[in-house]
């Protein structure tokens, strides 16, 4: 697992917002999560799942990747009162909610992105290639589980947030707008 240090302010901004979005998302399900150091796995690999959501905006593109073991995703299902959920589907939905939160935060910075629907994979010893731009890995410890998040981003030369599109999201996650 390679770790690429952020090299530009926009990437660092996105990565900081992503870390905050991870904490908020799991908090909404009653889990306190804290960043933890990245470590190479030394034990036998477990069955795990990976969800990838691509995004693109004006002058940037990339992906958010969420990786967790099957027991971890099952703990999330329990927190969501799901007795008959599926690991890949649940992981995909959590990645979708994570990107939704990131998107709302970036809107407040003048960075507008559009997301794809998630693609998921499950298996043992899943490997990811390095993306063409920058990437950063973050690991978070929950009560008795760990989740790993990777942010990939590639910026066009001279990328700047579009401050004319900077806007507060009209509602936060968990909120409701009645028309």
């Amino acid at each position, binding site marked *: 697992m390679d770790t690429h240090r952020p090299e530009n302010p926009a990437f660092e901004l996105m990565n900081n917002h992503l870390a905050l979005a991870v904490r908020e*998302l799991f908090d909404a399900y009653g889990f306190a999560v804290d960043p933890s150091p990245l470590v190479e796995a030394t034990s036998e690999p477990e069955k795990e799942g990976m969800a990838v959501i691509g995004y693109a905006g004006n002058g940037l593109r990339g992906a958010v990747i969420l990786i967790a073991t099957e027991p971890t995703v099952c703990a999330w299902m329990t927190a969501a009162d799901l007795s008959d*959920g599926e690991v890949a589907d649940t992981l995909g939905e959590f990645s979708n909610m994570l990107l*939704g939160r990131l998107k709302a935060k970036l809107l407040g910075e003048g960075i507008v992105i559009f997301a794809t629907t998630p693609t998921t994979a499950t298996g043992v010893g899943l490997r990811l290639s390095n993306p063409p731009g920058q990437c950063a890995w973050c690991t978070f410890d929950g009560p008795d589980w760990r989740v790993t998040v990777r942010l990939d981003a590639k910026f066009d030369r001279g990328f700047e947030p579009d401050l004319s599109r900077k806007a507060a999201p009209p509602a936060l996650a968990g909120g409701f707008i009645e028309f």
Partner: protein
Amino acid sequence: MTKTVLVIDDSLMVRRQVGNALKGLGYAVVEGVDGVDALEKLDATPGVGLIVCDVNMPRMNGIEFLERLSARGSAVPIVMLTTEGEPEIIQRAKSLGAKGWLIKPFKAEFLEATAKKWAPLTT
């Protein structure tokens, strides 16, 4: 008398969460996995009283689904349930006749209030 809610989302997790919450209130629930599937379910299910619809879905997304219903002149109230918070998309949904916008992960009380307002159960 019970009423039927059509829940449209490509995620099984969301369909189950919303479906369980609504069934607990006494509603019958029909599921659709995307806009195309939902149009078929809507045609095959008489008396749908409310639609809860995701935005980002494969094949036909929630906004395209709203456009199709609007073109048909459908009177079934629709509430969007999504991770999206983009003001332009919210405005588009409003202009197409959506009644509200819930942001995931949703709070059960908002879903309940919405269902009771747009598809009230009669005893």
